[in-house]
């Protein structure tokens, strides 16, 4: 295998470099450029400078929020059926797929024989969760999703980080995914 090798060019210190000052001035030029342009942006309220290059990369977080991409894995939510019932049938796929074992489910028998099974309890411990998305991937009913677009918020106690069925359902909207052999 002939590797295409490139020898990196080391800087040979010349007098200008040895004198410290030119490099320092150049460096100061760079930082000052950023400083001046950002100051201009800040004062004038522009997002970007006229050249379109300098911009302040950070945001004032709680006041201003970055929009998460659609695939962002955030707070879990449980979707609903068309009749607003919980879509989850307590199949335990998510808790099985979960590498962190953070999902606790208890199944119950539903009166409606077409639903049969539903979760009586559905707890996720967000302190244990590693937000890997395996549960979402493992769900065979489009019930659990992580696309709520919000991340898990800090809480004051450990128990508060254990979210329950109600919290999860609150975030969930109706899912339109067809299921159970009903092709559209």
């Amino acid at each position, binding site marked *: 295998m002939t590797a295409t090798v490139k020898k990196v060019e080391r800087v040979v210190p010349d007098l200008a470099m040895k004198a410290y000052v030119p490099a*320092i001035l150049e*460096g100061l030029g760079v*930082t*000052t450029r950023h400083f001046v342009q950002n100051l201009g942006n800040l004062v004038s309220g522009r997002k970007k400078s006229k050249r379109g290059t300098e911009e*302040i990369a950070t*945001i004032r977080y709680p006041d201003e929020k970055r929009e998460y991409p659609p695939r962002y894995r955030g707070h879990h939510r449980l979707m609903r059926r068309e009749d607003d019932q919980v879509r989850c049938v307590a199949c335990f796929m998510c808790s099985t797929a979960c590498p962190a074992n953070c999902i606790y489910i208890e199944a119950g028998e539903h009166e409606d024989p077409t639903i049969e099974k539903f979760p009586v309890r559905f707890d996720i411990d967000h302190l244990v969760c590693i937000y890997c998305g395996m549960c979402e991937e493992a769900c065979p009913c489009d019930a659990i999703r992580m696309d709520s677009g919000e991340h898990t918020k800090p809480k004051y106690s450990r128990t508060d980080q254990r979210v329950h069925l109600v919290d999860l359902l609150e975030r969930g909207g109706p899912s339109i995914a067809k299921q159970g052999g009903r092709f559209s």
Partner: protein
Amino acid sequence: MTTLILYALLKIAGFVLGYVMLTATLLTWIERKQSALAQDRIGPARASIMGLRLGGLLHIPADAIKSFTKEDFIPDTPNPWLFKFAPVIAFIPAFVMFAVIPFGPGDLIISSASFGVLFILAVTGISVYGATLAGWASNSSLSLLGGLRAAAQMISYEVTMGLSLVGIFMVYEDVNLQNVVIRQGSNVLNWGIVTQPLAFFLFLAAVIAETKRGPFDVAEGESELVAGYFTEYSAMRFAMFMLGEFIAIVGVSAVLVTFFLGGWQVPGLEETGGWYTVLQVSAFALKTWFLCWLQLMIRWTLPRFRYDQIMHLGWRILLPLSLLNVLVTGIVLAIIHG
């Protein structure tokens, strides 16, 4: 006598407490905000009183309150008293340095002592004690290394600092700072930076080293020594080092302005008195601010020297250069006047 005291107090209040302390406290904010802007960040903006944020300015009182209400603990050390007073020792020299700096024409100088520059050199010499004693008294290896580095570095650059000023004195024939400023006059071409350009750079480097600021901050180089000589300090004692450092920044900027940037002189303005004085005091303030800004910018631009490189730079480059500067100044002056 009473008037004398009152007048002195007025000047102290106006200059040291008003201008210097204000600038130093503002610098704690500016350091963060300026670096933030230079690095494409927003910087401090969180502290607020009822939604009012003032661009993060409220962080200054917030920090003060925090520092005051934190536990000030003293580690297990054989020298608790040294430990306790080292921050004060570090703080005082930076503070009293302003006594001999003229901030305006005439008697707008707290102490018009004729030994002005000697006082500054003496005071910066004393400031070595703060860091060294802190490092020693902390009874920690990291602190000790930091303290030793601080001591060696500061005294090494002290020599360059003194030597680079010799040229200034040769040109302006006085060691009283007010007189140096007056001799520089309102003509920019007669200012120290033009007549003694090399000395300016030497002195700038030396004073940055004296204040232990980047790129000379090996004494507190956090990637090696965690926080150097003040690793063990907490609460307001820790803040005193910081405050002392920022006051020292203002101090050395003022000294630089005085020696090299014409002090309170406004270019082209010969008269003094009345509104002119106000203008000149403002000019002094602005020049000092600019140099403060420059020092901060340098700190946020450059990497840190290694300790031996600092010593190398000080003894083998800056010292010979400052000797050379004296020699060249002497020759040039001799040629001009000879």
